[in-house]
């Protein structure tokens, strides 16, 4: 057990390190990093100082090590756009994105899993067909289009303008973008839960439980659902990736003041320092999530724990 956990942590660290290195080399390839990272109105002397500190006259390896070292000291560079440090811009926007993303994830998980369970338990019924139809719909629907439709119908039918500037932060103002963002993940959760539960229900041990006299309710709650939940957990990591990606677009559609919009503005203005910090934070979030998912998997499934001696 300890061995598996250590290996998984090690793997996460390596993954993160490679992501960081890729970011470094891309920035290095693109132009003068000193200009990119120094505060925008910095006098040439300050830019020069950055140049020395980044060691642009040094061999690539030294530069790389200094780059990593700078990160550990919390130096991620400054925004050319606003002159503020990259992390301060990021953390200022983080709560809005967390609120949106977590709400979307909760909607996706809650509704998706429920729909999937119902579909599996009513296999081949109208509800099952509806849920499966919905999951394809959710998969194929571009979230920016869906978002625009929500905005449009809100304005036409309910007289609400979602995402307008100065809009009050009401529940509806959160729900519309969160539902849009969570739609695709909801579809995959529904579909995945359904197939996982159907597969479990067809396992020989479920028949064995029936003939041992275990009542249906208990078979479902104590055996089928826990077993079916294991693969659904792995979906969590993948769907978080989808939500991070979707947030970029959804925030744009609903003018949601989060990291997604910061990212787009940074791309448009080539604000490298901010961009870099966002990419690093996404990599960190995703790596940690994937690690946690892996560990939860090990906890849920005794077969993953390896030998007794570990």
């Amino acid at each position: 057990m300890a061995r598996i956990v250590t290996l998984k942590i090690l793997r996460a660290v390596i993954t993160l390190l490679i992501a960081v290195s890729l970011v470094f080399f891309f920035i290095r390839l693109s132009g003068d990093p000193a200009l990119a990272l120094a505060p925008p109105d910095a006098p040439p002397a300050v830019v020069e100082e950055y140049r020395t500190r980044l060691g642009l006259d040094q061999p690539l390896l030294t530069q790389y090590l200094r780059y990593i070292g700078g990160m550990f000291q919390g130096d991620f560079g400054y925004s050319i756009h606003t002159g503020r440090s990259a992390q301060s811009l990021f953390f200022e926007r983080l709560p809005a994105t967390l609120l949106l993303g977590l709400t979307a994830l909760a909607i996706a998980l809650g509704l998706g899993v429920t729909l999937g369970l119902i579909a599996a338990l009513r296999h081949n019924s109208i509800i099952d067909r509806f849920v499966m139809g919905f999951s394809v719909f959710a998969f194929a629907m571009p979230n920016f289009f869906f978002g625009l439709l929500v905005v449009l119908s809100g304005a036409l039918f309910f007289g609400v303008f979602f995402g307008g500037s100065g809009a009050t932060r009401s529940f509806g103002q959160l729900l519309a973008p969160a539902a849009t963002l969570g739609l695709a993940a909801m579809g995959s959760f529904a579909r995945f839960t359904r197939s996982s539960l159907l597969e479990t229900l067809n396992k020989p041990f479920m028949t064995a439980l029936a003939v041992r006299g275990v009542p249906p309710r208990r078979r479902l709650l104590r055996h089928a659902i826990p077993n079916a939940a294991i693969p659904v957990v792995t979906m969590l990591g993948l769907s978080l990736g989808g939500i991070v990606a979707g947030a970029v677009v959804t925030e744009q559609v609903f003018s949601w003041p989060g990291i997604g919009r910061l990212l787009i503005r940074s791309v448009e203005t080539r604000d490298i320092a901010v961009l870099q910090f966002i990419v690093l934070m996404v990599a960190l979030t995703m790596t940690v999530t994937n690690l946690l998912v892996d560990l939860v998997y090990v906890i849920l499934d005794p077969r993953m724990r390896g030998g007794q001696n570990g």
Partner: protein
Amino acid sequence: MPLVVKLSLIFLVLFVLFALFGTYLTPYGYRQTALMHRLEAPGLFGSGSEYPLGTDARGRDLVARLAVGAQVTLLVAVAGTLIGAVIGSALGLIAAARRGYTEAAIMTGVDVQLSLPIIIVALFVLAMFDSSFMLLLFLIGLTGWEAYARLVRAATLSARNQGYVTAQRVLGASALRIYLRHILPNVFNVILVQFTVNMPLTILLETALSFLGLGVQPPMTSLGQIMSEGRDRLLNAWWLTLFPGMLIFLLALSISLVGDWLRDRLDPTLRGRRMT
């Protein structure tokens, strides 16, 4: 063949025909502006305009723009999906064939990709380098390469353990013969099914990037880019959003439905779990 699959196939054929010949449906060029006819509502819906699907803010004919947009979207979808499929499948095959450090390196690459959603990577790279269509195509093409790599690796490893491969090794067949004649044909279904899963994702990435104004750049156009231009006029020129949006949605939907059907047909273990 279920009705929805037939309808999907019909839509796909119509879409391809529209992309190829749509520009002949209208006398106007897709870049031809007409300041007198700005933001005309679709004539088809009784506005009295001579433009059946209306015009955009510069008076350009939406039929022509949609046709060109469909062309670009289709090109990016097919070419992009092929890029990912080829790179990902090749890496998956190599990982399974070589094992050891090669495999570890490739699978670490997969892990890295899983920690960075492709749209983030694409935005980062697009900000770093001057945008060009080829760069865009390549970035979009990377969509889902890691899925191919994982699936093909798993399928190859499982095929390698099948008796028919052992029998070939005992016969002294060369590795090339074993992989080309015996493993690849049996892994091909996996690639084909994944192709249909991945193509909608590729389409959605391209249209999303273009919608954000960071994908296909004017004067070129794509379905996402048309929507991007229509976004600020959502309430008074809904057709600029609705028509391209429906095209993207129906395209992705049809491919998914055909893909699901294909999977049921090709994978006997999933048979009986019909989708719709």
